[in-house]
């Protein structure tokens, strides 16, 4: 069993699976439920779904699609996107999602994190921190699928998030996302060293070696993969895949 979790992170846009680059332009990947079936075959240990248009459109999750996804997945699944109240989180949880992911709602009202923790237990609450360099070059946390600058620093916010009761942090580098250029190790380490809850590093993975770096140098407890699991290779076609266990074992045992 791997000591580090490697989690495919899939993006939902309306009722399609897509993949973005730097939270910007996107390409179609396929039908959500159908794609779950392929991940079942690949025997990944955990899956994550994020609805990237829910916050932007100010709407709730698409429960119908979520029900399909939850029923299709033979492994634990987390969901984020448009979770703004405990009631919504309740509904998502009851559909069969083990963990809830929040960002925008948490930045708007940090006490929300505590409410969710109280309702579901901290282990089911993941706060997603999306980071983009400001014009001055400093890392800032962003809300609403990367469109709104909260002006907060990732390390500061991470500490508060932990204090408020989050179980995990999903840390995404917007600048690296979809680029295959490797993780932002500096960013990951700064946050992972600042908190004692697991940090899932995401954004930029291009190879198994990158995964190793995020863990060994960045001190990430887990790694999220996007482009790597939906494209055959950088610049090539859509082909759902997952790194071979022996290759992962070599870098993260």
């Amino acid at each position: 069993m791997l000591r580090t979790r490697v989690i495919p992170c899939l993006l939902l846009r309306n009722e399609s699976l897509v993949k973005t680059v730097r939270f910007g332009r996107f390409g179609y990947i396929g039908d959500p439920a159908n794609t779950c079936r392929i991940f079942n075959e690949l025997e990944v240990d955990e899956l994550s779904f994020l609805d990237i248009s829910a916050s932007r459109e100010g709407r709730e999750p698409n429960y119908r699609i979520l029900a399909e996804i939850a029923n299709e997945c033979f492994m634990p699944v987390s969901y984020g996107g448009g979770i703004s109240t405990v009631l919504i989180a309740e509904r998502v949880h009851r559909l069969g999602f083990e963990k809830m992911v929040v960002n925008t709602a948490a930045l708007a009202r940090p006490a929300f994190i505590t409410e969710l923790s109280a309702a579901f237990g901290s282990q089911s609450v993941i706060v997603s921190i999306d980071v983009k360099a400001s014009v001055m070059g400093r890392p800032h946390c962003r809300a609403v699928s990367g469109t709104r600058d909260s002006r907060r620093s990732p390390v500061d916010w991470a500490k508060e998030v932990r204090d408020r009761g989050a179980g995990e942090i999903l840390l995404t580098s917007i600048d690296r996302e979809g680029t295959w250029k490797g993780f932002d190790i500096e960013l990951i380490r700064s946050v992972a060293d600042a908190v004692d809850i697991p940090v899932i590093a995401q954004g930029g993975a291009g190879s198994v070696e990158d995964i190793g770096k995020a863990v060994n140098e960045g001190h990430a407890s887990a790694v999220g993969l996007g482009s790597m699991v939906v494209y055959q290779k950088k610049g090539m076609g859509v082909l759902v895949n997952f790194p071979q266990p022996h290759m992962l074992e070599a870098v993260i045992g």
Partner: protein
Amino acid sequence: MITIVDYGMGNLGSIQNMLKRVGVPCVITSDIDAIEAAEKVILPGVGAFDTAMNRINAAGMRDVLDHKALVEKVPVLGICLGMQLLTRCSDEGNSLGLNWVPAVTHRFAEGTDLKVPHMGWNQARPAQASALTADFDDDTRFYFVHSYFVTVDEPDRSILKTTYGIEFDSGVQHENIFGVQFHPEKSHRYGMKLLKRFAEI
């Protein structure tokens, strides 16, 4: 036909899909007559002990379930909370369990290094031979998410053990009644094998 009992709690859809995937027909039902006709029963469960027992009783299912399990003795599989319901009682709540397996349910102790609930993949090691676990090997692991664990009265009822701080019974068997603490329906390959074994009993 394997009948998955629907009393309103549990990953029913996922269990059904996994059974379908391994070619085993099954039905989800809350209907007493349908349960009556069951060849095998799966009792799923996610959530609180009392809520579950209350729902089962309120739905009028108790009698038919007792009959299937204790009189007809069809194979029964309790999953997660479903396994805890098989025991006499639980630290969680005030209700009595189904009491089909001589065992009790305790809460994990707080304040140790390990967080509660136990959530994540972990190994389940065979404690003794059982039809359900015949093909387990050193790699076999499952997905767990629970705050309470089961302890059997007699060691020979324990078929699987898992370590999370302490060692606890992650699988039990009493005659035709089986229980697993983990979620086979969330444990891909390993879960499929286990459910297939159950279907073949």
